[in-house]
């Protein structure tokens, strides 16, 4: 029996066990939406308010479920509005499958209404993309898209389906046990490499593990703990590695990078072994490359071969899935401890804590972002999912919320997309309905995707939005203060009454302007049954420290 391309797409999505679609209808995907009308019960559709929101929501969904998030949008502006989200997913290795409508095949290249060369536009920011002009191409393309998005290093894919394809009829034959050889064999390390890595670790005096997003993607949290507990190796995390090791683990020393903790940045340059586990030595982690970890032998696990030696030369590159590599490696590691080395970190932590304490004394009775996040952490027993936006709010959320469970800190790391948090929190809440989900945003970022309040309203999603309002684009202002002699060039921002705005979307809320109201406001915020916006008027010129300034070495990290 023959079916329309649109119907074939629905059946293909069900074959891939898709449950949720984030989308927006338009001229060039109307046949698909017409088919979706009959699948309403099997395929939950979330109508976003802007296509960028669909992509970020799909990312949020993928980050908490590990399954590809799905977007469905129309041609032209529908597709171009997705672009920021696709680029974001590419940078942060998030599996999303984007289906874009396209003008009918006969009009391709004619500058038809709402025609954009979507394949051309998305090629540099996708793992794979394909334009379909016949209905019988759909099943294999969908199978391929999902396989590619979720195998090897995850990432975004685009299927661009011309309108005639959606109407055209064909048989539905879904490929069985589909695979792509290239992505099936991801483990390319050999026993010799594993032995070499084990020998280096066994002889290390000052070993430091750097855990990244790859630990969470491959669900290797337990394997990581086994390695550090057996060897006594000290471990620090990248921004995306946060929550892979519980904050209170005795061998965990905090976050790396530009606004990471003091000790792991400072002591990177004393380490004799760096064991990089599913991370890519991003410039926000390494800062000045020529002065990064000069004494360290580097063992680097990454599923993506092209990451080895890209920024940092690896003495032992291990190509493979983090979990598989660690399982092979652990039996060869000797039981050990590095108490003196760990104590070097503890001593430095004291310096950071002292500075923090001074700040707290100075800011007593003031509303600062660190206080808000610390209290939120405590009051939610460190168990919530925090979806952070970009800027100071993101860094305070990374540093002051204490992450206990995996997949609990979600943010836009690589692309640094302001406006990420609200739509990504929508996807995260839909993917993990039983967990408390907080979007942590600033007054700048929230206004980039604030229309998604409409999506929250329509879907009645009990998402909690923590708005840290300092009336500035805070991170840029901080840099202007530190590096541009306080010339606050266009970083002050006047905003609407966010509480009233939220209320018009049926989102309850409260604004806190005094420190002594914070506790009770947070309690209400956390316990409220339904969507809620808590706006905290924080100190206008608060800064996030420690900080590794651009162009300086990690050991020049500043405490204040």
């Amino acid at each position, binding site marked *: 029996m023959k079916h329309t391309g649109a119907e074939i797409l629905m059946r293909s999505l069900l074959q891939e066990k898709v449950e949720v679609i984030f989308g927006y209808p338009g001229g060039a995907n109307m046949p698909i939406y017409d088919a979706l009308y009959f699948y309403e019960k099997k395929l939950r559709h979330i109508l976003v308010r802007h296509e960028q929101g669909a992509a970020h929501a799909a990312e949020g969904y993928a980050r908490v479920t590990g399954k590809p998030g799905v977007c469905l949008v129309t041609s032209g502006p529908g597709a171009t509005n997705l672009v920021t989200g696709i680029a974001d997913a590419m940078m942060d290795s998030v599996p999303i499958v984007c289906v874009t409508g396209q003008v009918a095949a006969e009009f391709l290249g004619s500058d038809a209404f709402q025609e954009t060369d979507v*394949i*051309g536009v998305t*090629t*540099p920011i996708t*793992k*794979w*993309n*394909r*334009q379909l002009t016949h209905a019988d191409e759909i099943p294999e393309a969908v199978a391929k898209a999902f396989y*590619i998005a979720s195998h090897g290093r995850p990432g975004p894919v685009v299927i661009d389906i011309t309108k005639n394809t959606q109407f055209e009829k064909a048989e539905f034959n879904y490929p069985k046990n589909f695979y*792509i050889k*290239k*992505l099936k064999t991801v483990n390319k390390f050999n026993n010799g490499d594993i032995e070499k890595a084990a020998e280096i670790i066994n002889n290390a005096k000052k070993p430091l593990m750097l855990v990244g997003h790859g630990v969470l993607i491959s669900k290797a949290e337990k394997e990581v703990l086994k390695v550090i507990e057996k060897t006594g190796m000290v471990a620090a995390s990248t921004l995306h590695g946060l929550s892979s090791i519980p904050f209170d683990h005795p061998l965990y020393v905090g976050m790396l990078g530009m606004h990471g903790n003091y000790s792991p940045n400072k002591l990177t340059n004393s380490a004799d072994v760096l064991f990089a586990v599913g991370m890519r030595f991003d410039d926000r982690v390494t800062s000045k490359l020529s002065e990064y970890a000069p004494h360290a032998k580097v063992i680097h696990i990454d599923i*993506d*071969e*092209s990451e080895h*030696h*890209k920024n940092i030369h690896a003495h032992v590159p291990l190509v493979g899935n983090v979990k598989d590599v660690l399982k092979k490696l652990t039996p060869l590691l000797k039981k050990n401890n590095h108490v003196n080395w760990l104590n070097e970190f503890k001593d430095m932590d004291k310096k950071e804590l002292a500075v923090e304490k001074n700040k707290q004394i100075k800011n007593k009775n003031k509303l600062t972002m660190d206080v808000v996040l610390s209290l939120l952490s405590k009051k939610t027993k460190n168990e919530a999912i925090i979806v952070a936006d970009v800027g100071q709010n993101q860094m305070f959320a990374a540093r002051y919320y204490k992450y206990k469970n995996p997949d609990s800190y979600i943010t836009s790391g690589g692309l640094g997309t302001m406006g990420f948090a609200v739509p990504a929190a929508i996807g995260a809440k839909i993917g993990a309905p039983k967990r408390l989900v907080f979007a942590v945003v600033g007054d700048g970022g929230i206004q980039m995707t604030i229309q998604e309040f409409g999506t929250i309203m329509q879907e009645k999603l009990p998402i909690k939005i923590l708005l840290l309002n300092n009336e500035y684009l805070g991170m840029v202002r901080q840099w202007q203060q530190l590096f541009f002699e306080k010339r606050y060039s266009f970083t002050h921002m006047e905003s609407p009454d966010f509480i009233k705005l939220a209320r018009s979307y049926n989102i309850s809320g409260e604004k806190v302007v005094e420190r002594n109201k914070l506790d009770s406001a947070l309690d209400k915020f956390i316990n409220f049954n339904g969507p809620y916006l808590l706006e905290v008027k924080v100190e206008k010129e608060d800064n996030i420290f420690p900080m590794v300034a651009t162009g300086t070495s990690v050991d020049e990290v500043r405490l204040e």
Partner: protein
Amino acid sequence: MKYTVDIVTENKPGVLYRIAGLLTKRKINIERINAYTVKNNGISKIFFTAEIEDRIVDTLVKQIYKIIEVIEIKYHKVSH
């Protein structure tokens, strides 16, 4: 340094565009390029020559290899 990169790929639309994109991203200009299909087995061969910094050539070639359709890739320095 001048390098020639030899690529064997599935003959699918967009592969050359992906390769060119990876070069454009690093402001590399192709000096010579040759591409053709191999009979009827769905395979294409692409050869290009370009000035590429020694320190990035290996990473660049691995990034090209990440293109799903690319089957094989080799590179060598061009001697004058």
